[in-house]
């Protein structure tokens, strides 16, 4: 390449890189730095506080993310298999809708639907399934958060898994059908094994985004422990101005995300 072309490439790359490096990479590093400082001194006290106060919240977040991921994958694998074998455009379109609905709106909608005096209980009480004097609360607990995350992420999962299934050649499925394979066998023995890599990438993305979800637990969380980790970070900053502990919690969440990212990198490098 000529020098002038090289220079042009550099100039073109600089502004977007600068924004991401300045407002994401640098703050990312500074959160590792601040997590090791306490009153201006190097210290591990922040991490000790995380262990003492938040270890159950970390487990709670992991549990919600894993549970939601398992449900989303379970539904998406078979739903997409059905949509791949019998094309059904209207249903496919319906499942794309949550992709374009913001997380805060999902949080609010589920809050209105699942609260003790929410729409779901009102409907169920009409047919006598729940008692009006003591309505059960689904929102304000882990199930409410999980339901919201599943609803929102199902759309992404359907998009990605269906994309992977569509790239499996039709002849494989035809061959299987000729040998009398049912829809279930076609999914289990052909579609699923042939799109394992794409499924792994999709799972890694969804797991991190669920673990890092903030607006959903903020909208339908109970305000009492156990809380999801991101809520702890926010409260630590907002109510206690304790940047040290908040950043230590942040670093723990990066490490969890990194473990997932490592798995993701291994999968994509294996493929190429």
């Amino acid at each position, binding site marked *: 390449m000529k020098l002038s072309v090289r220079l042009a490439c550099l100039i073109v790359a600089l502004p977007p890189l600068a924004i991401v490096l300045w407002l994401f990479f640098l703050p990312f590093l500074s959160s590792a730095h601040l997590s090791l400082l306490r009153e201006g001194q190097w210290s591990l006290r922040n991490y000790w506080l995380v262990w003492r106060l938040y270890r159950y919240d970390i487990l709670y977040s992991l549990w919600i993310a894993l549970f939601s991921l398992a449900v989303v994958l379970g539904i998406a694998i078979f739903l997409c298999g059905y949509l791949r074998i019998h094309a059904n455009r209207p249903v496919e379109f319906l*499942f794309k809708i949550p992709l374009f609905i913001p997380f805060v709106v999902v949080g*609010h909608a589920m809050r209105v639907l699942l609260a003790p*005096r929410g729409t779901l209980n009102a409907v169920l009480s009409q047919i006598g399934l729940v008692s009006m004097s003591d309505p059960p609360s689904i929102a304000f607990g882990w199930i409410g958060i999980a339901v919201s995350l599943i609803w929102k992420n199902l759309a992404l999962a359907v998009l990605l898994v269906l994309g992977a299934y569509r790239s499996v050649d039709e002849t494989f499925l035809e061959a299987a059908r000729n040998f009398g394979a049912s829809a279930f066998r076609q999914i289990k023995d052909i579609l699923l094994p042939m799109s394992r890599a794409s499924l792994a990438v999709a799972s890694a993305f969804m797991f991190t*985004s669920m673990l890092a979800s903030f607006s959903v637990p903020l909208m339908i969380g109970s305000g009492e422990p156990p809380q999801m980790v991101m809520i702890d970070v926010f409260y630590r900053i907002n109510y206690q101005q304790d*940047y040290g502990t908040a950043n230590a919690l942040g670093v723990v969440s990066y490490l969890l995300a990194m473990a997932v990212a490592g798995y993701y990198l291994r999968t994509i490098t294996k493929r190429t």
Partner: protein
Amino acid sequence: MMRPTLRMAGFVVAALIIFGPLSSLVIWSFAEKWYWPHLFPQQLGFLYWAKVFQGDMLRALQDGLVIAVVVTALTLVITVPLAYVLARMPIPLKPVILMVFLLPQAFPQLPVFVNSMTLLYRVNLGGKLGGVILIHMVGALVFAVWTMTAVFKSVPETLEEAAINLGASRLKTFWSVSLPLATPGIVASTLLVFLYSLDEFTGTLLVGSPFVLTLPVYMYRTSVGYELQVASVSALLLMVPGIVLLVMLERYMKSEYLSMFGRI
């Protein structure tokens, strides 16, 4: 051989799953009086919809739109050239550059943005429109860079080579061959960026509060404050651009733009 009744049943179940949670928003937005445990509100009306055109909600709507337009324009201008370079030029460290633009999606944003907030306050951009625009661009660039690089890669290289062989410069080729061919994909990517900025919550809450208010943050405050009708109206307003976009993208968006995501 799917029986039509079974197909219909599948559609109804899917519609219930998708629209069930959203339907209570619609009812709530029109409910002027609704006492538990009645199935429907006692009094319906447009009282809360009228609030859209006044006070804080109107301000939130306007600010959110201004921010989204500026974010989209700036992101478009700085990403199109970079995406072309990433798709076509043999530049060094290309995988590293692409990975940098994956970071804001690969790591939890909130704990990072807490520190970005400190940095923005240091240069006097905290609590201002400028700061919110910058923090939106961090996330917007991820979508823009990855999708637009895929778009330029999908333009047939032979057409560009033909133009160069006929004596056109790189720049001329870019303007009159690559850019026009990439336009539908760029439109799709631009719409995604616009939607991302309209819906952004975490960064706006941290960097903008309490001075810059966009619709998602306004909705969060009213919902948590149990102003359920106002929150439901805002929620429905927030859904409109997404649904419009979904219908438009069905025409523009090719699945290969999205399937490129995250592959080096």
